[in-house]
């Protein structure tokens, strides 16, 4: 009972409620898009983009921007990187995976370098650590952060529902989709932009190193058990909701880092679903 009353006590603080709301919304968006990204063999785009977002955030913090001000730099830069990665992925001269590798490592190194050289803050390694692992920033959200996040998540979820059938077609068989008249390159372009937006949002929650977990784990867990695209999408969203909710509760009550705890909850869910999938297949 003491645990529950402790939780109620925590939820009286607005920043805890904000963190909970934003965390769950971001996880929901990331998991929905994750189904498409994983199936299209694009899961590493999320990883690459998160490093780019780290580099962009470093630029923003050197310029003295924080909060929503930094978004003005981070969001467009990450979106540009998303489009570049997607275009080079189709180019046969530079392989997609190598292009992502170069871009992500380059952005990571560049970001750390300029943070070290130009940063006005006295605690550079603390800044870097919180950007990489999102240790506390989820608990320092302002009201405008929360509104921005709600609007963007609503946009992503609306996009997913409205384009659900086209997304399926493009994901399952791109050449068939373009033969039937779907503009697949436009579709891929939009997917890249939405991915970039989610990654920039999710940086607040889990930090840039752990974002891929939010994208990949729910989809992979759902695919262990479910067999249709619809059920996998719904299940992935459900897993993301439960894992993020539980992870945040544990993290708030036990004082563990929010991002890492949420990812651990996702890993546990994956293990449970793997076993479940094996048992059901028998």
């Amino acid at each position, binding site marked *: 009972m003491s645990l529950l009353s402790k939780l109620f006590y925590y939820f009286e603080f607005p920043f805890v409620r904000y963190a909970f709301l934003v965390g769950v919304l971001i996880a929901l968006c990331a998991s929905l898009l994750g189904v498409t990204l994983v199936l299209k063999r694009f899961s590493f785009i999320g990883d690459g983009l998160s490093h780019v977002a780290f580099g962009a955030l470093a630029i923003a913090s050197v310029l003295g921007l924080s909060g929503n001000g930094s978004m003005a730099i981070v969001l467009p830069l990450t979106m540009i990187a998303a489009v570049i990665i997607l275009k080079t992925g189709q180019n046969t001269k530079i392989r997609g995976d190598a292009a992502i590798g170069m871009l992500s490592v380059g952005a990571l190194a560049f970001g750390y370098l300029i943070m070290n050289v130009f940063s006005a803050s006295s605690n550079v390694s603390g800044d870097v650590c919180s950007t990489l692992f999102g240790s506390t920033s989820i608990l320092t959200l302002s009201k405008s952060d929360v509104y921005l996040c709600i609007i963007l998540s609503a946009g992503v979820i609306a996009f997913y529902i409205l384009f659900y059938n*086209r997304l399926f077609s493009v994901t399952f068989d791109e050449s*068939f989709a373009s033969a*039937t008249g779907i503009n697949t390159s436009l579709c891929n372009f939009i997917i890249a932009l939405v991915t970039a937006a989610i990654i920039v949002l999710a940086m607040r929650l889990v930090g840039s190193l752990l974002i891929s977990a939010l994208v990949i784990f729910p989809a992979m867990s759902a695919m262990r058990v479910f067999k249709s*695209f*619809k059920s996998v999408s719904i299940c992935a969203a459900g897993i993301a909701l439960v894992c993020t909710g539980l992870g945040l509760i544990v993290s708030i009550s036990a004082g563990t880092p929010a991002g890492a705890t949420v990812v651990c909850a996702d890993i546990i869910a994956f293990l449970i679903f793997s076993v479940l999938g094996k048992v059901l297949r028998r």
Partner: protein
Amino acid sequence: MQIISVNNLAYGYEGGAIVNGLSFTVSEGDFLSVLGDNGSGKSTLMKTLLGLHRPSSGVIEFQNGLKASEIGYLPQQTPVQRDFPASVREVVLSGFSGKLKGPFYSAEQKKKAKENIEKMGIEKLSGKCYRELSGGQQQRVLLARALCAAEKVLVMDEPVSGLDPNATADFYSLIQRLNKEDGKTIIMVSHDVDCAVRYSSHILHIGCHIFFGTAHEFRHSSAVTSLICNEDHDEDSGHASLAPTHDCHGGKKLCFPGDEGAGRVHGAAGKKGGKKK
């Protein structure tokens, strides 16, 4: 009624044309098989016909009211599909995805999808997961999807590759029914000369020798002879890529000079009509 006319077409990958000066026509109700060696550009020709690939020169014309959206496509399977969680119903419905007006499929489209599933004889599988089906069943699903997209023409890229003999025979009779009973025009890439000659009305052979004509003309043309001679030079056994390792219906096999029973095709080319027994 002529519906597709290809005139002096050249196409290829970046950097150079693989095929030059290709001309042929397709009429309504035709069953055209496209033959040729590996890498001769059969799949690329299909993509060029569908507008997925830009030709380097020449004209492809759709005539007598044929629209690009009336052509259905059965592409080669991709590695992505092998572990894709999708039910048969979802895959077949996605044939309509190019015709979506709003975000969702209409009741009429759902009904049509159901009819196509029944037509392919896979209604028992419609709730099953695509990745758990056999190769032949998967091709039926993809064919049902192509039927949702196509009103008139079906373009298929090696639909029987990787199927066992029974599944191949089933699939051919299915295509033949679509062609004869439903009047669908079929354009099919194939590796299998014997079945192509047996089932199709027209043959297009691309490669070093370009041949276009009816299956009957093909049987008696020199293209067959040169085809076999080339294969004999390329491969020790001559069996590997040309000869069907299975029989598609009647159990007759395409034979090679030196084999027992050689000259069925070879002789036909020389003597004219030698094949008809």
